[in-house]
């Protein structure tokens, strides 16, 4: 009986993880369709971080980590190796920062601040990869990246707050309530 419960648990978790990963990829695909309004093409607001932040705070770092890996693999398949390294470097650094902030609990930031800090870490990770490809010229993008991470990260935090009830409902649909 205990064994069946565990197997079912894994199935439920896998299903939820699949849905969340698909949502993260869909969000980043959709924002790629918006004509570039930022001064550097390829710069995107990074709203798929909404899903990663939800997973990290509500389900645990492991969930969020799998989403980050899934997103990077999707980038590898659709946009090639460069996109893969950009995605994984930004994704992991960003996840590390948000996990740290969520762990601080009441001493940490609110959702807006967490969004900003993780967007900043995401950009930093990508900039480091770009530095290896482009050389020191890549650093000249830094001021702009700092500014845009405040805007995009802040908006990400606000959107997460709004869609939170929906995501929580999605979560409880897949996972049996344990409390």
């Amino acid at each position, binding site marked *: 009986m205990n064994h069946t419960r565990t197997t079912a648990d894994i199935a439920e978790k896998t299903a939820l993880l699949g849905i969340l990963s698909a949502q993260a990829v869909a969000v980043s695909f959709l924002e790629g369709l918006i004509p570039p309004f930022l001064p*550097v093409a*390829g710069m995107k607001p990074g709203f798929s971080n909404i899903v990663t932040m939800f997973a990290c705070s509500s389900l645990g770092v492991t969930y969020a980590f799998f989403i980050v890996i899934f997103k990077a693999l999707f980038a590898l398949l659709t946009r090639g190796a460069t996109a893969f390294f950009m995605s994984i470097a930004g994704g992991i650094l960003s996840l590390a920062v948000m996990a740290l902030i969520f762990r601080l609990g009441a001493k940490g930031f*609110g959702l807006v601040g967490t969004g900003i800090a993780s967007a900043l870490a995401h950009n930093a990770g990508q900039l480091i990869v770009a530095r290896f*490809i482009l050389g020191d*010229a*890549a650093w*000249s993008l830094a001021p702009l990246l700092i500014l845009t991470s405040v805007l995009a990260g802040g908006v990400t935090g606000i959107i997460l707050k709004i869609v*939170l009830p929906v995501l929580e409902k999605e979560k*409880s649909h897949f996972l049996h309530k344990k409390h």
Partner: protein
Amino acid sequence: MSELTQTGHNRLPLLRRKDIILAAVLVAASLILLLPSLSQKSSSLYAVIYCRGEKYKTIDLTSVKDSYTLSVTGTSEVLLRVENGSIAFESSQCPDKLCVKSGKLRYKGQSAACLPAEVMISVRSDSEGGADVISY
């Protein structure tokens, strides 16, 4: 609703005072870093082309009379369209074509890159470029 109030999120508020301080500090830092290049009054306009991590060529965009296409080969070939006062990626063999979508660069401080081809172009008001871009 009771199950929602038990989640971690509702213990996490949308905005804390710290968040505003963080945002303010970052905006201030980026503006300070951007200011020198924005306030510079200069009519000169140079395009600096970087190829595989190194400065490849500098073009004075104000002295271009007839527009032309320039081929630069990093890990793959890209074509740059050079016109009076602007430079753009015309074509590239990369999968996502983000470089081409960047369009024409005509103001100083603008830059565009084709990461798969390892080619970057940057428009600036001095012909130097290189490592000192960190300070701008």
